[in-house]
């Protein structure tokens, strides 16, 4: 393997890690604030990708689809929260079952409307950036920058704004936050919508790089869950650490052996890490679910 091959591999892995972080972050925020394990998170990612498909089909540009993916999936998240999630709060197992049901409904609805076949979306930018000894697609670099910006914006939102301070208070003690005048239901809605929107943006951004089909969310849901478990809850850095660890293993083993062995390695190492660090690599002590 040459130096150029190594650099390309490193950039590929970094891109996957950052997208995975975005998806895992949405899951972690929803679980952290609402104690809801959202099995529909992969479907929100899938909806983001299909939104790009719809917008392009209607004559709009990819970029318009990408811009609309967050707000549109946030609206779907609001609807799901209002119709389903709010009825099962504080019942962890029920949230898993309910969101699994939501994921089936979304998947089947998309299959009914668009069919089970996969669709492809053209790369919006064909150009490549020249590095010493190799070239790398501009669009993949754009995805990395977008993911970094969204992870940074999320960190800013939760740790440097009034909303974030209030959200952390709601996470720590809902009753006491309500006693200080905070409408915790409004935080529930906003959090579920925001976490869902992150998945939607990730799906839209990845749409030109992977096949868009009703099953595509599952491929991200499992590694995103493992990233949250491995990295730990309670900080933005937790999902990032989890996604970084598992994404790197996945990329390296897939390149060295095969994608199948990569899945095996990711699962095995995740099991070992969760056994060694039950609260995650960067997990904090917090409320148990």
């Amino acid at each position, binding site marked *: 393997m040459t130096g150029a091959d190594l650099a390309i591999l490193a950039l590929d892995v970094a891109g996957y890690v950052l997208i995975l972080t975005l998806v895992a972050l949405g899951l972690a925020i929803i679980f952290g604030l609402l104690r809801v394990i959202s099995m529909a998170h992969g479907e929100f990612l899938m909806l983001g990708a299909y939104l790009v498909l719809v917008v392009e089909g209607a004559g709009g540009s990819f970029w318009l689809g990408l811009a609309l993916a967050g707000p549109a999936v946030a609206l779907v998240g609001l609807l799901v929260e209002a119709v389903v999630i709010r009825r099962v709060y504080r019942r962890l197992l029920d949230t898993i079952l309910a969101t699994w049901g939501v994921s089936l409904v979304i998947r089947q609805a998309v299959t009914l409307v668009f069919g089970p076949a996969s669709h492809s979306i053209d790369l919006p930018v064909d150009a490549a950036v020249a590095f010493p000894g190799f070239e790398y697609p501009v669009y993949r670099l754009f995805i990395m920058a977008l993911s970094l910006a969204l992870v940074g914006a999320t960190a800013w939102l939760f740790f440097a704004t009034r909303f974030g301070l209030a959200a952390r208070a709601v996470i720590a003690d809902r009753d*006491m936050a*309500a006693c*200080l005048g905070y*409408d*915790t*239901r409004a935080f529930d809605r906003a959090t579920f919508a925001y976490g869902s929107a992150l998945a939607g943006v990730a799906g839209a951004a990845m749409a030109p790089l992977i096949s868009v089909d009703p099953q595509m969310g599952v491929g991200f849901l499992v590694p995103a869950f493992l990233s949250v478990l491995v990295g730990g809850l309670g900080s933005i850095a937790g999902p990032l650490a989890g996604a970084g660890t598992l994404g790197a293993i996945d990329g390296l083993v897939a390149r060295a052996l095969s994608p199948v062995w990569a899945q095996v390695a990711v699962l095995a190492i995740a099991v070992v890490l969760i056994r060694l660090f039950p609260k995650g690599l960067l997990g904090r002590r917090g409320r148990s679910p």
Partner: protein
Amino acid sequence: MLECRDLTAGYGGGVVLEGLSLAVGRGEAVGVLGRNGVGKTTLLRVIMGLLPLAGGEVRLDGLPIHRVPTHARARAGLAYVPQGRGLFGELSVADNLRLADLARPGIDDALGLFSTLAERRDARADALSGGQQQQLAIARALRTRPTCLLLDEPSEGVQPSVVSDLADTLRARVAETGLAVVLVEQNADLALRLCDRLVFLEAGAVAETIPAEAARRDPALIDARLGL
């Protein structure tokens, strides 16, 4: 100011409050005393909306508030310092105070209530001593500019000098702003220092009300009613 009429509430199938009625006027501090399990904490939780009411009504300034959620009651003027203080332990003293009113810049007014808080404004709330934590909880509650303050055993685990400090601060606030206070206590010392009236609960209802002044003159009145 605060009126509770025929309150009935409990946990699961068990009834804890059974037809309890209590009124607290503007600028009045009422101590609610009673043995364990008579419904003191339940009363405050019901008033704050943290526990559903099976019957009766709660009014604040004449308006019924028993059907609105907790956050709306807080915005209407109720403040609550629960047993255990309800601080956000991982947040700093300053952030705990900011949370009381995010729209209002500056926390010097709240820090000024208790000198030790100003010295420890950047410390995590869970790193404070028991007395400092209670001061912080009360300063945070007062920063919401309540018209009625509900206090659940604020003297628990707090040394006597701090209890005295709390009483002075609250007494001054009651006199200056007309704040109404409902103080639930097992330990009568703070109630005697702060309150105008003492209400004794038994079996989920008010058994007797006496002027605090009478109990200050003859503390045996309290012992007799608490069965001490």
